[in-house]
């Protein structure tokens, strides 16, 4: 059976550095940090007091008051980003065959804001279980996919993917594979997360995963820098329209690029720590490249996971050198988490969008906040430190790795 070709025809984003694709890309290219003091809750007793929050997002601009109450923030971000992507794609959703259109959406955590509110209500009610009937359908992480399908009447494959910080990369990979297999013509895919609350920040603090550079939030996310001290929690959504190539051509769609391959592996090693040699990371890049029949020297850019944790950055760097050999020193690497923070389950989607736009515009967004080289990291690699670089990008990889040892990587290729 011949696999179908798959292309990207629409993008949407709600991020800490911009609430549209244009704003997001401009901020990426200009090296803008999305970090600042947390405004969502009182951080007095918290080790970390800053985050990359989405700014200027007013739910009632998009939903009526009744809808807002039924949607956790992660689902609100999902619906708004999805709508941007649908508009951007020019799809005539009214006249699509509903059975050929699906939604696969990633969220690593889901409605943790809702969960905490309801748990708090229960504690305050002296044990009387007055949970809202919307508690469960607001919280469960698959619900974003459900809402999107209801909005557009997409009746094809529909589910959520959960693999912590790799969730939305898995969503993109699954959508890609299902179109290739002829199971659907169009997918709305991507992911969203909204975990900047007491439970999210407190929980990641307990893992010692977050930067505590409270005196200087904007430079706290320092991937590959000697003084990196953890990730900066972010939030938001990235949405992509994936479409079968012929379907896109026949409707005269504007095509961003082709999805050429996807890899998925596991470290099978530790709950939260990466394999020290970057084993799973190496295998997942190799798998994405072989899946797409991509030659090593075609890859011009890797948007890395690069969360700025002490171990993770070293392991990923080792993996890149092993996979690419000499070519590792010729390609551009960047961690856009230096600007957006870590969007957890949405990371793969917004970073895939960065990779896709790098292909479109021939610009590699930077890894900002580089001050001091780390002896444990090979600084002959081009990390695109501090300033965007112009170059033609033929193939871009987007890597994401999640707690639990889940790895996913997608290869995007300029359309020929």
């Amino acid at each position, binding site marked *: 059976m011949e696999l179908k070709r798959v292309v990207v025809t629409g993008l949407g984003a709600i991020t800490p550095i911009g609430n549209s694709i244009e704003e997001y890309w401009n901020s990426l290219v200009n090296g803008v940090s999305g970090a600042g003091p947390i405004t969502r809750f009182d951080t007095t007793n918290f080790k970390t007091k800053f985050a990359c929050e989405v700014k200027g997002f007013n739910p009632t601009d998009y939903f009526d008051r*009744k809808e807002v*109450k039924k949607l956790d923030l992660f689902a609100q971000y999902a619906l708004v980003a999805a709508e941007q992507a649908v508009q951007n794609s020019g799809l005539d959703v009214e006249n699509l065959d509903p059975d050929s259109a699906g939604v696969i959406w990633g969220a690593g955590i889901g409605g943790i804001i809702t969960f905490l509110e309801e748990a708090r209500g229960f504690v305050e009610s002296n044990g009387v279980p*007055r949970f809202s*009937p*919307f508690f469960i*359908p607001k919280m469960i992480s698959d619900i974003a996919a459900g809402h999107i399908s209801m909005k557009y009447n997409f009746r094809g494959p529909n589910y959520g993917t959960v693999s912590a910080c790799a969730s939305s990369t898995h969503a993109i990979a699954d959508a890609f594979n299902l179109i290739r297999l002829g199971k659907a013509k169009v997918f709305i895919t991507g992911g969203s997360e909204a975990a900047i609350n007491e439970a999210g920040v407190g929980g990641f603090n307990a893992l010692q995963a977050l930067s505590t550079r409270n005196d200087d939030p904007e430079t706290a996310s320092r991937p590959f820098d000697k003084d990196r001290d953890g990730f900066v929690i972010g939030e938001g959504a990235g949405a992509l329209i994936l479409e079968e190539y012929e379907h896109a051509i026949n409707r005269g769609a504007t095509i961003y690029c082709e999805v050429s391959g996807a890899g998925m592996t596991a470290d099978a090693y530790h709950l939260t720590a990466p394999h020290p040699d970057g084993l799973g990371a190496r295998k997942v890049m190799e798998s994405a490249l072989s899946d797409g029949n991509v030659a090593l020297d075609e890859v011009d850019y890797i948007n890395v996971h690069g969360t700025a944790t002490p171990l993770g950055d070293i392991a990923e760097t080792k993996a890149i050198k092993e996979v690419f050999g000499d070519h590792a020193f010729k390609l551009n690497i960047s961690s856009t988490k230096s600007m957006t923070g870590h969007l957890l389950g949405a990371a793969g989607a917004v970073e895939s969008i960065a990779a896709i736009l790098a292909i479109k515009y021939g610009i590699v967004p930077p890894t900002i906040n580089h001050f001091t080289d780390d002896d444990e990291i090979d600084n002959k690699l081009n990390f695109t430190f501090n300033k965007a670089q112009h170059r033609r990008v033929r193939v871009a990889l987007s890597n994401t790795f999640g707690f639990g040892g889940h790895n996913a990587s997608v290869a995007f290729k300029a359309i020929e």
Partner: protein
Amino acid sequence: MSDIASRVKAIIVDKLGVDETEVTPEASFTNDLGADSLDTVELIMEFEKEFNIAIPDDQAENIGTVGDAIAYIEENAK
């Protein structure tokens, strides 16, 4: 308008996102005010909380309009 009636209406306006003028005694939650089954459950829970009463499920089934709710609560609230 009684105190209970105005509190009931305020809850309905808040939870269903409808205009106050729509919340007439005859208005049905599902037919006139756009509530689905989950919205109705939520309304009943809010009434229970606001008036510190317990509305058994078999009684809740009979509360279909704004007037039904006000009458039930006037009779049962402490």
